[in-house]
């Protein structure tokens, strides 16, 4: 495969008066607390390695003080690392001089801040156009582009207002428009929605997802909220005390937490909203492919269960229950399988969330068929697999007690 779009290798950050002198001790593997008590230096980030693909939302998650805000500031060198390599689209960011770095920040990346970081003395329009103003773009182009982006975040008509006249959600929309206005490939979002109340936050998440579908930016999103991470992220990295604990797709993190720390994190998540059908479904076991009712019954009797998914050349057709087949055979065993014998159970899509399919699954006595967009049967979702997925953390929690008893 080609090189990743953004690559971070062996990144260390130590805060204090003389970070270089402390670095050897960090490399030896001494702990954060030891270093703090012996040298008075704070270990901010420790051996971070990340590869980020183009056009994806990469979420960096952790509790406050874990170094996530420090980490995101390394991408555009708002914070200088003590040691490490940062490569963005083939450019070695660490070797840019001041002028090159300014140009890199102007054209390659833009940033959205937790407390918005808007200029209080500029109007909304001027704020959105700020990145272009920095680039010395002429006023006409600036105004035109800024107006267009304000419109696409739903704030047309607010051009001449000042940020203090706007609500938090509106201010962050201005922040987002400002970030998009420079046409940078990469969007750094530092806890961009954390200061907003929950309803506005989920609205903003929807808007970001919607925009991303059109724009395909590479987004690095910092958050402390796992629900938000799971909702937005194509990949999630979990940070603790400046160390990378786990990196993977959302479902991977949910279903296979790498450590107790991640597991504790994952426990409170609403799994039904975070997991998709794809991640918990089983391969479809019971296909009925026969042409006639008699043959179908033959197939059915060989199965350990009394239902099957009827699949023809055109793909999935419906569910057949043994009882119906027995009835139909009495009339004419040679008759072909038709709508009369199978039940047209609506299939579910592999990418839908568990939450959406939960009622249907509970309604039926047999597992629901999962059918992809091409019409092919790709899996089945039973009540018990849903139950397993949703209850996993509690089950694991019970384990140590069981051992004690033994």
């Amino acid at each position: 495969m080609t090189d990743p779009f953004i690559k971070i290798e062996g990144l260390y950050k130590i805060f204090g008066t003389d970070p270089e002198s402390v670095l050897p001790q960090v490399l030896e593997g001494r702990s954060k607390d030891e270093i703090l008590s012996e040298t008075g230096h704070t270990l901010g980030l420790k051996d971070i390695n990340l590869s980020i693909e183009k056009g994806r939302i990469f979420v960096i998650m952790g509790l406050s003080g874990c170094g996530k805000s420090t980490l995101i500031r390394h991408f555009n060198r708002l914070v200088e690392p003590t040691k490490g390599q940062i490569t963005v689209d083939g450019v070695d960011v660490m070797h840019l001089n001041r002028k090159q770095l300014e140009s890199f920040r102007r054209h390659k990346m833009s940033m959205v801040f937790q407390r918005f970081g808007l200029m209080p003395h500029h109007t909304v329009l001027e704020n959105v156009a700020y990145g272009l103003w920095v680039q010395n773009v002429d006023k006409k182009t600036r105004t035109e582009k800024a107006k267009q982006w304000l419109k696409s975040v739903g704030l047309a008509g607010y051009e001449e207002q000042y940020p203090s006249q706007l609500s938090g959600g509106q201010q962050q929309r201005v922040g987002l428009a400002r970030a998009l206005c420079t046409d940078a490939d990469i969007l750094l979002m530092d806890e961009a929605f954390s200061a907003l109340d929950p309803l506005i936050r989920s609205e903003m998440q929807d808007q970001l997802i919607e925009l991303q579908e059109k724009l395909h930016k590479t987004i690095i999103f910092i958050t402390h909220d796992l629900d938000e991470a799971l909702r937005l992220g194509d990949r999630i990295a979990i940070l603790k005390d400046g160390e990378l604990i786990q990196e993977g797709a959302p479902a991977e993190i949910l279903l296979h937490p790498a450590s107790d720390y991640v597991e504790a994190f994952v426990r409170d998540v609403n799994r039904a909203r975070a997991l998709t059908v794809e991640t918990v479904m089983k391969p479809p076991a019971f296909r009925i492919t026969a042409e006639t009712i008699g043959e179908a019954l033959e197939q059915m009797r060989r199965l350990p269960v009394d239902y099957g998914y009827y699949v023809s050349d055109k793909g999935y057709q419906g569910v057949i229950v043994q009882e119906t087949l027995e009835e139909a055979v009495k009339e004419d065993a040679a008759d072909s399988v038709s709508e009369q014998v199978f039940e047209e159970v609506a299939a579910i899509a592999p990418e839908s969330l568990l939450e959406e399919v939960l009622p249907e699954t509970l309604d039926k006595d047999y597992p629901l068929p999962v059918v992809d967009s091409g019409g092919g049967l790709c899996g089945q979702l039973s009540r018990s697999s849903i139950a397993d997925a949703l209850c996993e953390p509690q089950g694991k929690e019970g384990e140590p007690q069981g051992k004690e008893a033994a």
Partner: protein
Amino acid sequence: MAESSWFTDFPAMERSDLLTIRKTLDAGYREFSRTYGDLIESFFDPLLSFLVWFEKLLLASPWWAVILAITFLVYTASRSARLSVAVMIAFLLIGYFGMWDNTMRTLSIITVCTILSIALGIPIGIMMSRSDRVQSIVTPVLDIMQTMPAFVYLIPVVMLLGIGKVPGVIAVVIYAIPPVIRLTNLGIRLVDKEVLEAATAYGANAWQRLTGVQLPLSLPTIMAGINQTIMMALAMVVIASMIGVKGLGQPVLKSITNQYFTLGLFNGLAIVALAIMFDRVSQAYAKRTQRHLGGAQHD
């Protein structure tokens, strides 16, 4: 005998030694001022000619033109009709009580001192805000400038440049410049870190950050500094009159030595009128330019 005396009397240095120190320093400085006095004086020549020109302009223009001009400036800065009318009345009264010429002289020297203080003070304040080291050097110097009795630094200035307008301006600027430096420094240091970080993240260079973010956002604080500087310059007018600065200070000085209470009071009131005018106008201007920062609240 000699041993016990240090216990009761402070072991001070010999009188003759002290005398030598004083003589050496005084002679050294006198030598310095004789050698370089003319050179330094010629360095201040442009300032002097500007001062003379500005004073002549105010004195030579007809009184009604000056009052109209001042009222117009006050209105442009403050957009307050009440303030403008009050200023006009104050100047009419000053003229009626026969203090017109002295007021014009004071007005000219205060204006020049303020412009000079701002022109020097804001860049120094900016440098202080950019480096903790500069701040740690400049702060004690400012402390000395503010606490050292004005008379003490009048002596070397007079020795160097004689008496007259330029030493007066220097003395006033030394006394009045600290607030604008301190508050420029403070204002820039208090600018919201995230806003500044946003500017940096969008690739703004140092100049764009300074002019686009730091100065505009610290303007209220800087304006408070300028306001203080003007007030202190006005307070210094009487002391400056001791070294030959003409204006409202001289009659006050005359009233002290001759016990003319009423003369002192009138001229003192004229200084107060000028002070209030400068204060209200600069504050109204600052408030007007900052209206969007906190005035309009979203509900």
